[in-house]
């Protein structure tokens, strides 16, 4: 079992440690880029004022929908928009526009998070293998065998410290590699860890699943299934595939990782690790020299996406740039292109990103962009290629109102569009050089979906799964609701602060409080009530 016990932390280092983060390509970054562009490519007036407006740091809080309970507080922090004269109105509109999608973003994260938890909880409840800890990870040398709570306590503390230091070291290693542009090493690492998850751990999972339901299966069939599943997963995550498939695999991988934690961590250690990792998350993302913050900032500086194996992207589409290069085009066609081709590039929007994706249909023609970032170009390319198939799928997810109001929004967006016109001219020019026949295709649109690190998925699921392993459903539901509310709060803060935020602390704190409170206090009360069929 040594082999298996040695493997998880690898994945852990890369999946969880490095990425529990909630990131949304921040506005500020964008402004910065715009300003950069200005200096590079000359400006127009609109651009300049817009830039000035955008640099106003304060946000007028219109948000209330996504988090009603906090609204009174939200109202108070409302805009002290000391910004330039014409600015605030535009800014307001834009804010409103941004927040309008807020609620939808929240739901787009709720669904995968809930799915991930569902997989974990269902597995915990149906496969007893994951319920009991008999083998331990290499990183948790203290096994909490003693009946004494004090011994268990220091065991848990020591274990979680060891595990956390592994996570810290791995994260720092990742940052150093990223800083030094060792993309191949990082990709190799990520591919290796997802390979292990998709093959070895999936095989273990399948085995236990079959055993739990007492289904006989011969090895050739199992190998065939494993091969197809694993290879499809590797392709979807690291190379190309429909967006939904990629998301599905990411959710599954996160659930599997969470199950590994639940299975192999001793009981108290699991709780200690949850607490420790949310504190670490807070430090890593928010402190000025925090590794995850450095990672995000470096990625933004380089205009790159963060590795797809680390991040779940909700890919809610903001077609901000989708229409901007044809202001003279009539609105209906603009909307048509916008709806039919949502953005699938993970890149935060910038000139470079645009360039990149433009160049990507013919990589040879874009040496300037492809030379530095081979991986990125390739992913962009693949995303572009599977645009059509995935586009339908995504378009189907739109609400009626969304498409109905679209033209209105597009019109409003023109405001923002103006600010990116310099980029625009440049990209048009670029396109005519590289891909003259693709002028009708919309260029890469800004992707402003919320991104949630896979680590967040993993630890949310660990919390809920651990709660459900005690066999009490009320605790599980309480944890679930608490985590979702925590996520809501985090997203509200994200809308206010507009920078990468740690997604774990609030949710995990709520989750832990509700888990222990429910299992200690509420559960006996509810059991008493439901045994006597008293409804409150």
């Amino acid at each position: 079992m040594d082999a298996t016990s040695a493997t998880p932390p690898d994945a852990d280092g890369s999946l969880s440690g490095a990425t529990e983060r909630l990131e949304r390509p921040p506005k500020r970054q964008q402004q910065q880029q715009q300003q950069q562009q200005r200096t590079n490519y000359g400006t127009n007036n609109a651009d300049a004022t817009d830039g000035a407006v955008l640099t106003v740091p304060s946000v007028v809080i219109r948000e209330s929908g996504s988090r009603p309970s906090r609204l009174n507080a939200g109202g108070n922090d409302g805009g002290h928009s000391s910004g330039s004269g014409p600015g605030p109105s535009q800014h307001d509109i834009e804010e409103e526009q941004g927040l309008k999608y807020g609620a939808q973003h929240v739901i787009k994260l709720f669904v995968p998070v809930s799915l991930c938890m569902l997989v974990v909880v269902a597995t915990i409840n149906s496969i007893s293998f994951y319920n009991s800890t008999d083998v331990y990870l290499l990183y948790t040398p203290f096994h909490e065998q003693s009946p004494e709570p004090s011994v268990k306590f220091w065991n848990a503390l020591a274990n979680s410290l060891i595990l956390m230091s592994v996570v810290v070291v791995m994260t720092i290693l990742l940052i150093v590699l990223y800083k030094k542009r060792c993309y191949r090493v990082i990709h190799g690492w990520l591919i290796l860890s997802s390979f292990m998850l998709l093959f070895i751990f999936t095989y273990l999972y399948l085995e236990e699943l079959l055993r739990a339901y007492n289904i006989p299966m011969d090895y050739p069939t199992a190998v065939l299934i494993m091969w197809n599943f694993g290879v499809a997963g590797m392709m979807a995550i690291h190379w190309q595939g429909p967006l939904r498939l990629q998301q599905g695999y990411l959710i599954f991988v996160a659930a599997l990782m969470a199950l590994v934690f639940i299975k192999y961590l001793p009981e108290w250690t699991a709780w200690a690790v949850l607490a420790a990792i949310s504190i670490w998350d807070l430090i890593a993302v928010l402190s000025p020299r925090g590794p995850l913050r450095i990672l995000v900032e470096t990625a933004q500086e380089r205009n790159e996406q963060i590795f797809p194996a680390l991040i779940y992207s909700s890919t809610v589409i903001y077609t901000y740039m989708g229409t901007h290069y044809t202001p003279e085009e009539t609105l209906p066609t603009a909307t048509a292109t916008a709806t039919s081709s949502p953005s699938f590039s993970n890149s935060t929007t910038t000139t470079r990103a645009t360039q990149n994706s433009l160049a990507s249909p013919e990589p040879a023609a874009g040496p300037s962009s492809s030379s530095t970032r081979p991986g990125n170009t390739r992913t962009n390319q693949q995303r572009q290629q599977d645009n059509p198939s995935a586009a339908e799928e995504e378009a189907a997810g739109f609400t009626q109102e969304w498409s109905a109001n679209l033209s209105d929004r597009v019109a409003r967006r023109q405001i923002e569009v103006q600010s990116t016109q310099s980029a625009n001219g440049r990209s048009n020019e670029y396109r005519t050089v590289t891909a003259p026949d693709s002028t009708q295709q919309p260029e890469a649109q800004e992707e402003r979906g919320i991104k949630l690190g896979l680590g967040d998925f993993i630890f949310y699921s660990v919390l809920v799964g651990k709660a459900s392993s005690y066999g009490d459903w009320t605790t599980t539901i309480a944890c679930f609701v608490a985590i979702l509310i925590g996520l809501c709060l985090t997203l509200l803060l994200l809308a206010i602060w507009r920078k990468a935020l740690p997604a774990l602390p609030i949710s995990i704190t709520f989750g832990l409080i509700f888990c222990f409170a429910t299992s200690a206090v509420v559960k006996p009360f509810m059991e008493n009530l439901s045994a006597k069929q008293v409804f409150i």
Partner: protein
Amino acid sequence: MTLPEFFGCTFIAFGPPFALFVFSIANDPVRIIILIAAAFFWLLSLLLSSLLWFAAVPLRDVLVFGVVFSVLFQECFRYIIYRILRSTEQGLHAVAEDTRVTENKHILAYVSGLGFGIISAMFALVNVLADMSGPGTMGLKGGSEFFFITSAAQALSIVLLHTFWSIIFFNAFDTNNYVHIGYVVGTHLFVSLLTLLNADGYYWATLLPNYIVTVLTGAIAFKVAGGTGRSIKRFIMCR
């Protein structure tokens, strides 16, 4: 017998709420969030009442005490969520894609009430359901075989009642209608205290009055939300 019973009771209790969720809530992200927020507030109220129950050690076996305070806490939190939703209406108006959420203020009440009801019924029923699915079955050793089905039916009435109560309650505070506020708190107390009789097996004595109260409350909620006899007739005739 266990599995069919499990599914039957699940669908009795959660079928109608699920349908309500799918048809009236799932399409609008804002409503989903409000639903979850309401559920969270209900959890908070439950936590407070459990703490009180837990702290009052000598009274732990006297369920009446816990029930009364739990009902009061729930109504307090209903008021809190009412205050919050009303004070954020402006913000909601800016955010909500579906303007009906703010134009028809009963929708907010309905959504938060459903959130209250669903989480309440879940907490009451979910462990019972888990026991239902297996391996034992009820009524073999002298217990009543109607235990599960009455639990499920009662849970359904609680979901519906919470929804109606919230509609009446929100409107009562909007219009300063103290009779309605009193009605909501009173019927909530009545229904909860009545279920204490379940322990002795008087199922008809609890279920029948509770459903009468549910229908009555539903009628009041319908009227409060602007429905009339004519509109219901038009609805039935599909005009």
